[in-house]
């Protein structure tokens, strides 16, 4: 089968990660093994695609091209279909994310209670817009459409831990603590 050439100059959007270092290799092999196991458990059925993508995102942090190709081959799906599904859902990311993630809930209850101010403060502090990672690669700023914690609005999720009734100052303090880390 002819190999793909993702680094074609005519498509600058497509970049293959430079992960060919030898020590990464061993780790990535193990991660591909988990993908194999997930696919096998689902008998390589087409409808397992979303579950496998979840698994891939969990073990690789994001969906790099190599992984998408691997999944497409495994489930015998067209590449465009895999790409279409991976980009349809918000939770799948095709770009590497920062060391920490900060998700601001923008559901109605949080919105009414001023979550947009929290978000503004964060955007200013991190110098990036929602959906992106700060320039130093430390913090990814994301938004969610309701995490179901409306009783304690406004809510922000720091690395998977929900914090409720939060003020912009408090959020900034947490972010600054992350930024101070090495």
């Amino acid at each position, binding site marked *: 089968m002819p190999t793909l050439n993702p680094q074609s100059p005519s498509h600058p959007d497509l970049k293959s990660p430079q992960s060919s270092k030898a020590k990464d290799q061993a780790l990535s092999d193990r991660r591909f093994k988990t993908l194999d196991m997930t696919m096998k458990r689902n008998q390589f059925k*087409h409808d397992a695609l*979303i579950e496998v993508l979840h698994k891939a995102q969990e073990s690789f942090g994001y969906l790099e091209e190599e992984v998408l190709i691997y999944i497409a081959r495994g489930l015998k799906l067209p590449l465009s279909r895999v790409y279409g599904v991976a980009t349809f859902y918000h939770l799948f990311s095709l770009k590497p994310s920062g060391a920490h993630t900060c998700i601001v809930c923008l559901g*109605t209850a949080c919105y009414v209670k001023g979550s947009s101010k929290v978000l503004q403060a964060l955007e200013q502090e991190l110098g990036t817009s929602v959906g992106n990672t700060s320039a130093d690669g430390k913090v990814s700023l994301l938004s969610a*459409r309701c*995490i179901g*914690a409306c009783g304690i609005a406004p809510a922000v999720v720091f690395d998977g831990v929900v914090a409720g009734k939060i003020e912009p100052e408090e959020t900034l303090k947490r972010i600054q603590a992350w930024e101070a880390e090495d």
Partner: protein
Amino acid sequence: MDLANLIDVATAEQMRQKPLRVNCCTSTGCRAARSLEVMQNLEAAVEAEGLTDRVEVVGVGCMGFCGLGPLVQVEPSATLYDESHRSTALVEDLFYEGVKPAEATSIIGALNGGVTTALKGDLQHPFFARQKKVVREYSGRIDPERIEEYIAVGGYRALYKALFEMTPEEVVAEITKSGLRGRGGGGYPTGLKWATVAKMPAGQKYVICNGDEGDPGAFMDRSVLESDPHLILEGMAIAGYAVGANHGFIYVRAEYPLAIQRLQKAIQQAKKYGLLGTQIFDSHWDFKIDIRIGAGAFVCGEETALIQSVEGGRGNPRPRPPYPAQSGLWQCPTLINNVETFGNITPIVRNGSDWYAGIGTEKSKGTKIFALTGKIRNNGLIEVPMGITLREIVEEMGGGVPDGTVKAVQTGGPSGGCIPATLLDTPVAYDSLVEIGSMMGSGGMVVMDESTSMVEVAHFYMEFCREESCGKCIPCRAGTVQLHELLTRFLKKQATKADLEKLESLCQMVKETSLCGLGMSAPNPVLSTLRYFHEEYEALLQAPIYAVPAYAVPD
């Protein structure tokens, strides 16, 4: 497992339980307020006070009063099985809200005659007293991670009753007679849906539970799944038996990790006891349930999109008919109901349709869970009988707006509308809410006060719909973009009279021509605010560029 075994498990569990239960909420809301630490401290205190033979700390699901978590309730375990014990109980119900980890020790101390500084809540407050709990009966009272507790309060008895004392037709007839309507928003009669799937020729059929609760401001399904997962599993199994399906899927949002984890545990436990899987109750009937995890797409709450997603594809809705009941998952007849709908099944089968039909109004039976949030004193989840007025919910139960007055109540999320304060006396029922330009929706109820700009609210929802549109049909994909831009012009005070007309006509067009429910209802927040708060739009119109001459033009 047969009925005798089931009763054995229940009795053993009742015997095992200690006389007093200290229930500590471990749902998402209270967890964020450090309830797990509170629970640890409670357990340590029981040990320290030497109460281990009398008192048991139980991590329970959501008690509903999420605005003031963590919540702790002391309850005699006997009242779980027989309400009449409440009057003769050794201690009255104690309820604490906003418990700090440091206060946990003194709560246990108070049981031994000490004093506690923890804030005592009032269970007689209308917020609790006005509720009618059918689906949430055991939410916040039993440990969702132990099937034994569910069995002890009568769990899986309804499934047994359906399997051995009723024919599938009788189950469908019972649901039809109860008058239950879909709790996902549309309000389609559940019995009719079941009957359609049941009447399809025998063969592979599926049951799907829609737990893709995407409405911002709503968390009823999350709470039910986190607090009483077996209730949903039992409801689905009964549905499977009634319509002739032997495979079910629960589709849950990935944003609800705790609900997923508890469901997985619940399914495992039910399988172990032979209540799910093959040969349920040693009969010849099999029913298995798989979990499917969403990946962040509001549109997947639409049933045909959800089916696409379960099949592993993009969540694009397709035109109906054919309805999923005729041709759904992998073109097989499929029954799709919402989490709350399935939550009603077990109580109906257990207590009978007449009991259920006695609750609510003539056309809307039973209860509805609402997530009461926004600018309101008492935040949280409430389950109320249909027919209660919005005023009773907002003012009595919710305690009104802290320092201010209610301006509007938004129900139904991005598909619903804003109800002005003048219409607060409207009863909560499917038809009455549609009449005033909103809808029941899945149960989000966001209260807004005088400081909220209604145009901003409409703008917020339109931005949501613009981002969540799947992009398949033109009116929704391109129409929501234009509507959002138009509303932005209003907020920037750049809109003209012509823009207002454009806004109205485009809303109509998107509403009537879109492919699925998301597109059809996307203009609702704009239409309802246009209807009740027209002056706010007019106030934002651009000032005329050309000054009108103050003098009369001479001829």
